[in-house]
């Protein structure tokens, strides 16, 4: 068991690619932290630096109390699950799991015990004699997990381990990974570009953008108080509406009586914070045109344009549309559901 500490971690590839630009982060012992961000933001690079597969250009990396900057991957006592699983195709499932133990000089009986134990946990004990080629995607995924957990390492690293599975299996494996991590309490760093996966899986999220941290916090902290416009737009689906302040006209209250902090020029409004009936609390009343109605089973989406400004916005609701497409409607937003931003710095202002 160990914590992971990143101090001013930087990675520069030849040719001036600043993939990771100074990351400070501490992952507590037993915690599952998810690194989330759009493709190309440096998630894999950061994870691979922790694994020892990329050199560290600058900064300090500690696992426990030990600085591991220059240690080989094998000496860091970590295990990694790769995106394409990276199973050894010429070895049986048993040997795939046993390989790391054999290399570390474990006794034969001990290896057998551990492999069977891991296989049982992951429900792959029926396939131990098969080659990876003859397994389904989900089974391969389990073998990849098994290879990580037989060694009982200090740290688990995951690089988009579910992105090759179909949607249904992805949800199922997500739940299993979380259960497993809860049970083993192994410190874990998990990389994904899928915000839903990140929200549901992580004890804490680290939102990464262009090699820098945008925000660190629990999923709910990040969802309810995004620190930047980038985070606000990235976390949550459908994405948060970003409306320039000047386009918001409260028809009940001509001189908009909001107490917004000074440099605010943009309001962020979650699609589910726009209501079709007026809430009890103080609120805005806005007129808009219903452009399109989209029913998606348990929820539906209304695409609207604000009156006078043509500013588009999305509403998430679970009811039927009150109007036909093309007609005017009134929508309501509680004051406390507004996220004030300064679009020049991209930062939250309250």
């Amino acid at each position, binding site marked *: 068991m160990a914590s992971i500490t990143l101090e001013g971690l930087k990675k520069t590839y030849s040719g001036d690619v600043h993939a990771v630009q100074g990351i400070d982060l501490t992952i507590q012992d037993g915690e599952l932290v998810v690194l989330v961000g759009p493709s190309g933001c440096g998630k894999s690079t950061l994870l691979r630096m922790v694994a020892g597969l990329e050199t560290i250009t600058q900064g300090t990396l500690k696992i426990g109390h030990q600085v591991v900057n220059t240690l080989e991957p*094998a000496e860091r006592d970590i295990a990694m699950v790769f995106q394409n699983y990276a199973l050894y195709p*010429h070895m049986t499932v048993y040997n795939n799991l046993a390989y790391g133990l054999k290399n570390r000089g474990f006794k034969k009986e001990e290896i057998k015990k551990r492999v069977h134990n891991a296989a049982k946990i992951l429900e792959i004990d029926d396939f131990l004699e098969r080659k990876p*080629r003859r397994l389904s995607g989900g089974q391969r995924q389990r073998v990849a997990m098994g*290879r990580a957990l037989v060694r009982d390492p200090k740290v688990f690293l995951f690089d988009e381990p579910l992105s090759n599975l179909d949607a249904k299996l992805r949800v199922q494996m997500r739940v299993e990974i979380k259960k497993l991590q809860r049970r083993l309490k192994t410190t874990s760093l998990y990389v994904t570009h899928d915000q839903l996966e990140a929200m549901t899986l992580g004890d804490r999220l680290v939102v990464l953008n262009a090699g820098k941290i945008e925000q660190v916090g629990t999923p709910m902290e990040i969802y309810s108080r995004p620190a930047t416009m980038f985070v606000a737009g990235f976390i949550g689906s459908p994405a948060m509406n970003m409306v320039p302040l000047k386009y918001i006209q409260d028809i009940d209250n001509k001189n908009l009586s909001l107490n917004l902090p000074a440099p605010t020029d943009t309001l962020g409004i979650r699609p589910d914070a726009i209501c079709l009936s007026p809430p009890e609390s103080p609120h805005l009343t806005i007129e808009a045109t219903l452009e399109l109605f989209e029913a998606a089973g348990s929820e539906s989406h209304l695409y609207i344009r604000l009156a006078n400004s043509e500013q588009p916005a999305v509403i998430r609701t679970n009811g039927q549309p009150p109007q036909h497409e093309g007609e005017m409607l009134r929508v309501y937003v509680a004051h406390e559901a507004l996220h004030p931003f300064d679009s020049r710095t991209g930062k939250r202002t309250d």
Partner: protein
Amino acid sequence: MQTKRSTYQNRWLPYLLLAPQLIITLVFFIWPASQAVKSSVERTDPFGFKTTFIGLENYAQILADITYLNALGRTAVFSVSVTLLSMGIALLLAVCVNRVLRTSKFYTTLLVWPYAVAPVVAGVLWWFLFNPTIGLIPHLLDWFNINWNHRVSGTQAMILITIAAAWKQVSYNFLFFLAGLQSIPQPLIEAAAIDGAKPFKRFWSIVFPLLSPTTFFLIIININYVMFDTFGVIDATTKGGPNQATMTLVYKIYNDGVVGLNIGSSSAQSVMLMGIVLLLTFIQFRFVERRVNY
């Protein structure tokens, strides 16, 4: 399933397009091969006046001939040595180049050059390098008190043709090994590194097994090369000597047929050689290939 089929307006066009390849195969392979089979069951007197059908007598004769059996054994040793040496060196080079590949277009090009050299030229090149009187290598070996003279020592002559023949094939093997190495996904190697395997262990337990389809293919190609294509190298360096020490099957065919004018025996030997290569290839496909598929 969709299958694409080209259709030609003119029904003779496909045949016309195939013709050059077919003619070449016919003129340079099928016809000589059938001639060889035909003359292997005949006896022709040295002046070519009279030809008699004698059945399998030529075959019986060569199989009873101790010089033929010696050549057979020698060819086996030669094949195994050349294949091992050229594939070993090629694999070593490919592994090195694969590590630095992004910057190594230059090396790749350089390492392919030997393949563009004709067998005879390669032979002459090594003949010069190893020439007991003027060559560089005997001069260097002299420092280690090794007296190099492949005109006298049969073993040294074998070493010379083995090096010359292997060198020629290194480029070809290198290209295939490099392509094979490139097709092994990097994460596999990284996973093995995390699993605590040192570079050497990683190579033997992950890389080498995954290269086995390439290795298998190259073994067949190399054996074929040694059996048929090393004539030029031998002719330019040792001419089968000294005292028949480098007389391999293919050189003996030439020696008995063209120099010794024993067309019947020479033909029977070439049919045997074809048979041996076919048999080896068959065995390899049958028994080895099954093991390299995963």
